[in-house]
């Protein structure tokens, strides 16, 4: 139970962070990307604040042997820059700019029952399922 509480606390802090920082406001996100117009550089400060905590914290955690409630740390291992990484990032960036929402805020804003955000979350889930299905197919088809 304690272990699930820590995961819920992490989610809660994450969501409060999104709210306090203004990342849940699509207009603010779009203005962050609008360097030639109503530029609002606030979101660069969100990233800076987060990395300032996470970077040294991760460096410390990398020295410890195991997490509190799991047998091992699941550090990502991939280092290659492949086509899916780049095409995926390009598509995500376009969708992010078009809507002003990325996955975290889309979920965090759901409780406000905003129908447009709910619609976004549904098609986002659909897009995730399509990409997941596609990668499963690619794994099973011998090449």
């Amino acid at each position, binding site marked *: 139970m304690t272990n699930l509480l820590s995961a819920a606390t*992490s989610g809660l*802090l994450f969501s409060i962070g999104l709210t306090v920082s203004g990342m849940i406001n699509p207009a603010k996100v779009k203005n962050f990307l609008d360097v030639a117009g109503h530029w609002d550089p606030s979101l660069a400060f969100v990233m800076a604040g987060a990395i300032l905590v996470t970077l040294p914290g991760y460096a410390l955690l990398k020295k410890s042997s195991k997490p509190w409630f799991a047998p091992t740390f699941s550090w*990502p291992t991939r280092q290659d820059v492949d086509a899916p990484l780049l095409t*995926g990032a390009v598509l995500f960036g376009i969708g992010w700019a078009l809507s002003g929402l990325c*996955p975290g805020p889309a979920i965090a804003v759901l409780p406000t029952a905003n129908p447009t955000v709910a619609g976004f979350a549904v098609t*986002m889930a*659909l897009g995730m399922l399509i990409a997941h299905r596609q990668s499963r197919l690619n794994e099973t088809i011998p090449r």
Partner: protein
Amino acid sequence: MSTEFTPFASFLGGMFIGLAALILMAAHGRIAGISGIVSGWLTQYDDKTRVNTAFLVGILLGLPLFASVTEQTPVIDIDSSLTAMLIAGLMVGYGTVHGSGCTSGHGVCGISRVSARSLIATATFLLSGTVMIFISRHLVGGT
């Protein structure tokens, strides 16, 4: 529509996000990548499901808790049409799974691990988002 530049609130919110990412790694050895957690929750039932569910419950509670404690209604301004939002959702969902991460997984956690792969992905979605906003706001017109 212009938005207020909020460096302090955004930096503080970013630190909350960073702390959340640290807790999830320290407790469960997991990267706080929202697209990975949401798509994992949608597609497979395994040993990660309970932690993913608890984390997502925390995400959903953040905004209502913030709103009730501070007695403020967070600003959520959406100027895109519903059609644009639905298409954007599809692109965000597909792009983040195809490209193995979003603003949190690549932008915060990946950069904090000093991963070149995540740094390149982050630069790519920031660039494609900036170009998309430039086209939609300054070349084609619109808002």
